[in-house]
């Protein structure tokens, strides 16, 4: 595997940001999975993706703790066109405050029908990745702006309430 050019990102490209039309592919993939495999199948996909494809990131988080989590999300959103995000480090947690979600923004601009469960993917995926790194993750908000919280296991976060995640609106 090649050495990452951008600290915090395990997979790197030769251009600084991705092509936003790929959000059409992500949205369509979710729709296909939900129609063919149902909610349980989609959730299983996200959890396995989180533990499998993202394993190198999870290892960075397990070894580097919350500082590595913060570095990753800063690098991640710098590579996502249109993102307006603030990453706030606290002693027992990192809050990723998404003021403008690049995916929802681009899907709306392109006139796409957004899968209403779209924002839940950040929780199912993020929770699986956090768990693999010995952390916990919670999500609130959605449909264009939200807050991801990654915390140490002893931070005492309340259980995730899926009702706190808004349905995505086109």
């Amino acid at each position, binding site marked *: 595997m*090649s050495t990452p050019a951008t600290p915090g990102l395990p997979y*790197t490209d030769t251009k600084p940001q991705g*092509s936003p*039309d790929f959000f*059409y592919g992500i949205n369509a993939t979710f*729709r*296909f999975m939900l129609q063919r495999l149902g909610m349980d199948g989609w959730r299983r*996909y996200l959890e396995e993706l989180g533990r499998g494809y993202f394993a190198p990131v999870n290892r960075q988080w397990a070894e580097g703790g919350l500082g590595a989590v913060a570095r990753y999300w800063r690098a*991640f959103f710098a590579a996502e066109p249109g993102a307006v995000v603030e990453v706030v480090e606290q002693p027992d947690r990192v809050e990723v405050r998404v003021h403008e979600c690049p995916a929802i923004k681009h899907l709306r601009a*392109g006139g796409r029908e957004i899968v209403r469960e779209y924002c839940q993917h950040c929780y199912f995926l993020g929770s699986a990745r956090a768990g693999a790194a010995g952390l916990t993750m919670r999500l609130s908000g959605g449909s264009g702006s939200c807050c991801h919280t990654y915390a140490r296991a002893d931070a005492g976060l309340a259980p995730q309430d899926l009702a706190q995640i808004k349905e995505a609106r086109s």
Partner: protein
Amino acid sequence: MIGCYDFCGHYEWTFGWFERTGGHALVRDYWNEAINHDSQRHARDLIRHGGIPGMLKYWGHTLAEESPSLGFNISHREDVFRIDFHDCPSRGFLLRNGLKNYRDYCDHCMGWTGPMLREAGYVIDHEHDHQGHCWWEMRPASATGGHAAPGLVAGAKDVRLRPDWPKDPAKLDRYTKANDPDAKMK
């Protein structure tokens, strides 16, 4: 969050997940239903209504965005649209990052463009070497015969003229007047 920066990485991972979950049929359905008919519906609309000028509009935009270093070349005439990839941005991402979760990532291109072009009335001649090099010629479905000779459509930019283009046909996946990802001739 799943991002667009490393899309090709998780997209490829997803092919392997689909195959393990529902076999090859589910992977084919995914390429056609989710990518051709949903994600890339803007491409379908342009090409169904615009033919070869629609192809130029779609691929001219999307390849310039995905590959700003222009690792590709587009050629077109009234009866043929051709792309030569000298440095595929998508396959190149996987090779540079050492990613492989599906047996042949390159199949996905024929997986969604094949059905899309069939619906628009076109067939495809294509070869790829799995190393980020490939070529595509799209012609009306009434076209017959084999592959055009190297250089005939793209001149010196024909990828088959590269010194590293495989001389051994066994190293190439080949399609002739095809629309189906399983119509591969080794």
